[in-house]
């Protein structure tokens, strides 16, 4: 029987011991004596969140297909266990073998959002691995980061040995082979980092040096090791049909956020919304073959026993065979007690028809993401959705029996005026009016329109990467303008408005576009006790303010400055395929409120056409 890292006393005392015992269906057990490489794959948040992440399941499956590798999972211990592990000096362990992470060859950490950064430090510290890459010895695991936040790895540069830029399916094999080769030759940690630095897509932060101008902007960023490349090319798989996909993902015992089969139908997005990082860095848009998806739907449902299946992509309505796929799923599985959950679809006749088949109309709500209230603002962000689209979609839905609508907006967008803010409330009201146009006897009581806004955060590699953000106070006052406008609407009793926390927003802003120096703020905040910052109950803004104070870093410098085109941005050394000239052109068009057509309408010359794949060559064979 497996021996657990935690004793019975601890496991019976903490919340949800199932987070720490492994043993789940489809988790992979191997003989540690028979593998060459032990890889600990970590999602730095609590189990229920980490287990819901598709990327880790893909890599876990891919690594474990290799006989010489055993990949295991690690998540952040929840605050109750965190305390106990610190007090009793229990080293953090991987779920499968229950062995300490510090005895592994690699610790891979997926970096999905900025507010998990303190949890990365927690994972390192509880693992008893030195926080700074420079302080690690040959005995310590190689700490490698990946995921969307690795597109600006600089705030984390001191804590990681390597970053993998892009999709994991391409060069991990090479990276692992190089590790074995180095071990065989008796090479040092540095020898390995030098070998890794030569692999495409791999960034070794310690091999680069940054100098700064007096005004704080970057003066120079250059490699200082002959093995390190000038530019790092993002990795991606052109053919996402002929690549590995887990047909037996791990099935957790406890309920997790994504407790269902997830079919990734495509990568990338044709839309080109100017605020959206995913829409830029995952270019070109690539679709998976319909037959492959059908086959996987069967297999994964069979191998997991899940009672629900869902589709994953940035914009499912743009998947060419969506209709066929959805009808197939309904026909095949609906009668077998399998729920089909639909991702955010564009609301039209087809999606309403489908939704009616798979969910209870009376209970479900429709979701629109207009992102901005006024048409002018939507043009600025290149959200190709008109007021007419929204009102028509909502109208059709209301006629079909729906009476609940959710709306998502962003506040604090570039060029936003008070009129744009108020337009959020006005749009919500127009939707309600559309509802009350239906004769009383035909409608289903009152309607409920719930609008939520988050504050816009400029992200690297988007046309808005140069845009200024605002202060905490300014965000709150903008939300107040919207709130006030809601109170003035005719149908205010049918409308509800919520907004996202401004304090988290400004911190996310700093880490999204920060340079190497903000690593010190992160470390200080962690030392002051910040952890689980993405959890409202644990987020402590005062401690973060203190961390800025103690380190002398300026939030305004990172957030409220409009960057010039000439400035060297911390992430400029990464080549995503989308050229900077395109982003500049898009930023200028945004300021003029000009809309850019989507990839299927017309090529706008973003730069990825040179790879000749995906949507770029659709219908051109």
């Amino acid at each position, binding site marked *: 029987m497996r021996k657990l890292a935690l004793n*019975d006393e601890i*496991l019976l005392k903490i919340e949800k011991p199932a987070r720490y*015992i492994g043993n789940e269906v489809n988790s992979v057990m191997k003989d540690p004596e028979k593998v060459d490489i032990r890889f600990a794959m970590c999602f730095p948040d609590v189990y229920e969140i980490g287990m819901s992440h598709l990327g880790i399941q893909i890599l876990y499956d891919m690594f474990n297909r290799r006989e010489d590798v055993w990949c295991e999972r690690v998540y952040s211990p929840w605050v109750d266990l965190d305390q106990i592990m610190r007090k009793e000096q229990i080293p953090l362990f991987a779920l499968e073998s229950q062995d300490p992470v510090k005895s592994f060859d690699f610790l891979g950490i997926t970096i999905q959002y900025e507010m998990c950064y303190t949890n990365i430090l927690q994972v390192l510290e509880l693992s008893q691995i030195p926080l700074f890459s420079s302080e690690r010895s040959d005995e310590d695991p190689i700490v490698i980061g990946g995921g969307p936040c690795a597109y600006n790895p600089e705030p984390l540069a001191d804590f990681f040995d390597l970053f993998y830029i892009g999709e994991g399916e391409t060069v991990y094999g090479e990276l692992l082979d190089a590790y074995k080769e180095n071990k065989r030759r008796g090479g040092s940690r540095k020898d390995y980092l030098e070998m890794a630095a030569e692999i495409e897509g791999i960034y070794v932060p310690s091999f680069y040096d940054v100098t700064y101008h007096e005004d704080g902007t970057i003066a120079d960023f250059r490699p200082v090791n002959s093995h390190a490349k000038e530019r790092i090319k993002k990795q991606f798989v052109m053919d996402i049909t002929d690549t590995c996909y887990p047909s037996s993902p791990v099935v957790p*015992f406890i309920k997790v956020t994504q407790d269902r089969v997830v079919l990734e139908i495509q990568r990338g997005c044709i839309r080109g919304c100017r605020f959206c990082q995913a829409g830029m860095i995952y270019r070109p848009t690539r679709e998976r073959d319909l037959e492959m998806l059908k086959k996987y739907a069967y297999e994964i*449902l*069979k191998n*997991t*026993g899940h009672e629900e299946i869902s589709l994953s992509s940035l914009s499912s309505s743009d998947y060419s065979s969506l209709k066929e796929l959805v009808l197939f799923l309904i026909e095949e599985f609906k009668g077998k007690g399998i729920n089909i959950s639909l991702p955010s679809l564009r609301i039209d006749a087809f999606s309403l028809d489908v939704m009616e088949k798979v969910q*209870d109309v009376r209970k479900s709500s429709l979701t629109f993401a207009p992102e901005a209230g006024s048409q002018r603002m939507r043009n600025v962000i290149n959200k190709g959705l008109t007021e007419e689209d929204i009102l028509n979609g909502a109208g059709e839905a209301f006629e079909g029996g729906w009476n609940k609508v959710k709306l998502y907006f962003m506040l604090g967008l570039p060029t936003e005026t008070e009129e744009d803010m108020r337009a959020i409330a006005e749009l919500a009201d127009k939707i309600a009016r559309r509802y009350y146009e239906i004769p009383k006897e035909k409608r289903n009581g009152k309607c409920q329109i719930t609008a939520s806004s988050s504050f816009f955060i400029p992200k690297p590699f988007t046309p808005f990467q140069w845009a200024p953000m605002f202060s905490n106070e300014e965000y709150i006052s903008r939300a107040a303008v919207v709130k006030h406008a809601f109170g003035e609407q005719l149908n205010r009793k049918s409308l509800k408005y919520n907004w996202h926390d401004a304090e988290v927003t400004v911190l996310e802003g700093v880490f999204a576009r920060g340079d190497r120096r903000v690593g010190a703020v992160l470390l200080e905040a962690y030392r002051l006790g910040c952890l689980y910052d993405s959890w409202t109950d644990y987020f402590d803004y005062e401690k973060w303010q203190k961390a800025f104070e103690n380190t002398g870093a300026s939030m305004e410098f990172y957030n409220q400055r409009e960057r010039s085109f000439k400035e060297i941005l911390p992430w400029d050394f990464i080549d995503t395929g989308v050229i900077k000239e395109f982003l500049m052109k898009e930023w200028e068009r945004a300021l003029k409120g000009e809309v850019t057509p989507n990839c299927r309408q017309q090529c706008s010359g973003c730069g990825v056409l040179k790879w000749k794949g995906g949507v770029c060559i659709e219908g051109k064979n």
Partner: protein
Amino acid sequence: MKARIKFRKYGVMKFIGHLDVMRYFQKAMRRAEIPIAFTEGYSPHMIMSFAQPLGVGITSEGEYLDIELTKPISSREAIEQLNRVMVEGIDIESFVQISGDKKASGMTITAASDYRVYPCASSRSLEEHIHIPLKWREGIPHFLGENQIIVWKKSKKSEKEVDILPLIYKMHADEDSLYLLLAAGSEQNLKPDLVMEAFLNYMGEPLCPLHYHRLDIRARGEDGAFVPLSDMGTEIL
């Protein structure tokens, strides 16, 4: 047609709570392709019911769930198919046909549960058992000879004084453990930790780490004796 499944729960699975065990079995039914029936209606769910929940930390060799089948499957095949998709720590022991009568469900007929209680050297490991103290051995007849044993019983809603003596059907010391046969079911239910707490308290002994292991869940048989729930069914050929 209805079937009753008996399973063991041990090892690390003792940390998986009752609701999660239910979810686990729902998924296991699909993986094993057991022809289980669903309820009618907009969101159909599997027709499945557990005889008795088992507390976190307790191991067992006699847990039960009843299911409704849409077509027959032989006991042998069902056990084989289910065991193929189990994790370490849950083993399917038997699969038998039971009466379709609602009054025959495991939940309804459960009348008693028996347990072994092992004293442990430390609460750090409930697998490392120690000998039964002589004092306990000697104390049991006196404890059971009392007129009543009043304890505070906490439920979700209230807290009240209860005499648990009539609910202890059997209690004696064996070589390495105490044996308990206690009332169980929807009408009267006594948990073993409540008995041990009362016993040690009565003995003036400090509460020590204990490992509870359920042996079986029982119904009252025709002759009045308590028989395992699995005895109320017949093998499907």
